């Protein structure tokens, strides 16, 4: 085996220029594919993070009926049994309790439907840095009986910090929920549909308003490892009686986001597939030339007693070597580029901001930097090579020794 590997390696360098050109085509294709993959993955991660953090969270625990009928009547008791399950699970980074309901907001000039979100600001801050979104006034304390208005809503209602807002809705199990609350601050939410209707209130005050003390409409759960979200959701599902509780991941709560990401990924992959095609044809060209040039040599080797399998292995290993050199160089060369781009993402101009804001994102093109980006490129290019490597193998097995030796 050592002899065959040595032969394959040395054969590569018989025509240094050709080997280097082929390896270079793999190198550049890997780098371009890395950048494309990192961009797609990075922008998707950013989109997911923005959407998920501002709306559903990664995983939600709800009352079993809440998903189909999101009414405060289906708020669940956040008691010790639930808290214990959360505390015992080491895969949970933190939990964010919420009490949400649609209400009618009124001022002396206008009335609008709004979403009231009762939150524990400390926990909410961990999820989406709510405090950083404050653009006027001040944040709420746990015991405050006041509200924060989203910037868009404040504009529509023509309200400012210090004004009071009337909230009217249906409380828990037939109670009425109504009150007048001073506006303590205004926050800018990057998701437009939320920015136009969201009102924050301390959790305790919200529960009190709805007459649903100790109850939550949703408990948001953030995994330690975000890539393990589905696994954690599955784990939690097993802990709760499905008769009373439902555990949903963001993919289940926002299927449209998942669909649009898939669509976007498909178009991005088209570019990457074209790069793979370039790599494939580059290697195939070299392999074809190599096979033509060395017909005679192969015939002689088979004549003197080398088995077809051994010769096939040599040609196969040569193809794999070329690819390995290109892939390894591409990964090594791509790493510093991606590290730089990850820390210095491309910033878009003002005109692009609105488009990005629609997705709740900053107008930047972030680059993902995880092992999957690198491993997927390496695996795909190696797979392409392995498939191309089968060509010389087949040729060797079909080779007529005499014809080849006379070539």
């Amino acid at each position, binding site marked *: 085996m050592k002899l065959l590997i040595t032969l394959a390696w*040395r054969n590569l360098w018989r025509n240094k220029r050709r080997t280097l050109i082929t390896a270079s085509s793999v190198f550049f294709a890997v780098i371009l594919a890395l950048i494309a993959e990192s961009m797609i993955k990075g922008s998707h991660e950013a989109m997911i993070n923005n959407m998920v953090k501002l709306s559903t969270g990664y995983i939600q625990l709800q009352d079993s009926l809440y998903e189909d009928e999101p009414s405060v009547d289906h708020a669940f008791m956040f008691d010790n049994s639930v808290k214990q399950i959360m505390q015992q699970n080491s895969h949970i980074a933190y939990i964010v309790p919420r009490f949400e309901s649609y209400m009618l907001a009124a001022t002396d000039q206008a009335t609008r439907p709004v979403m009231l979100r009762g939150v524990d600001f400390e926990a909410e801050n961990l999820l989406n840095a709510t405090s950083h979104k404050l653009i006027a006034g001040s944040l709420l304390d746990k015991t405050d009986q006041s509200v924060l208005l989203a910037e868009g809503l404040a504009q529509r209602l023509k309200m400012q910090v210090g004004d009071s807002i009337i909230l009217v809705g249906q409380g828990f199990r037939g109670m009425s929920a109504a009150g007048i609350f001073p506006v303590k601050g205004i926050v800018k939410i990057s998701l437009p549909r939320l920015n136009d209707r969201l009102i924050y209130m301390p959790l305790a005050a919200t529960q009190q308003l709805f007459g649903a003390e100790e109850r939550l409409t949703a408990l948001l759960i953030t995994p330690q490892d975000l890539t393990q979200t589905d696994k954690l959701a599955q784990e939690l599902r097993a802990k709760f009686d499905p008769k009373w509780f439902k555990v949903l991941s963001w993919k289940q709560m926002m299927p449209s986001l998942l669909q649009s990401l898939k669509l976007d990924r498909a178009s991005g992959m088209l570019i990457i597939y074209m790069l793979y095609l370039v790599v494939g044809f580059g290697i195939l060209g070299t392999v074809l030339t190599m096979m033509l040039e060395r017909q005679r040599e192969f015939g002689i080797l088979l*004549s003197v007693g080398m088995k077809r399998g051994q010769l096939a292995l040599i040609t196969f290993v040569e193809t794999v070597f070329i690819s390995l050199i290109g892939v390894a160089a591409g990964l090594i060369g791509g790493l510093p580029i991606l590290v730089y781009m990850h820390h210095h993402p491309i910033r878009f101009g003002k005109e692009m901001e609105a488009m990005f804001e629609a997705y709740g994102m900053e107008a930047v093109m972030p680059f993902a930097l995880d092992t999957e980006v690198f491993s997927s490129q390496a695996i795909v290019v190696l797979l392409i090579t392995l498939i191309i490597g089968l060509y010389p193998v087949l040729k060797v097995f079909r080779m007529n020794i005499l014809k080849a030796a006379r070539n």
Partner: protein
Amino acid sequence: MAVIETIGLTKIYNETIVPVKALHEVDLSFDQGEFTSIVGPSGSGKTTLLNMLGGLDKPSSGQILINRKDITTLKERQLTNFRLQHIGFVFQSYNLIPVLTAIENVSFIMLLQKHSRKKIDQRAREILEQVGLGDRLNARPSQLSGGQQQRVAVARALASRPDFVLADEPTANLDTQSAFNLLDIMEKLNREENITLIFSTHDQRVIERARRVITLVDGAVAGDEKRQQ
């Protein structure tokens, strides 16, 4: 005792279209240690006969017995193994592996035969010494002259001590001095190692040195002369 025997060996190319008879009812026998030249004009069937004896081509009819074993009945895999274990080849264009050094080229067949490293190294050095290339062990073919390359090819063919060596016009590309050197070496190895050598050649220098000359004309044996030297 005959190492090789051919019985009614016939080869017809293009049997179904325009049949070309390359060999016709060839009956020959080669004893251990013979130094034989197969001569004849172009197209007389020399190379075809060598290809048959080397198990590289199948006859249309007839038998080839090597150590009394009919190799025409062997399957390809068995033939490959047979060639590896029993036959040495020397080609007109040397056909060394360009990426291997002289000693590696000589070791190559023995490595395929899976001999021990120590034994291979010892034998490769010994035979390269015998062909006068003891000081060029680590030279690549491109660093050797044509004559030197052909000597490495001879060393490669003989290193594994095959039952016989088939050489297809081995001196055709060599100048006179290199050809004589090569023939001296082959004669010496033939004598010392008692290996049967069969050449196909046009080269008068080879014919003069052979102890047996078989003449082929139109695929048939036209003469078989044994000489005392």
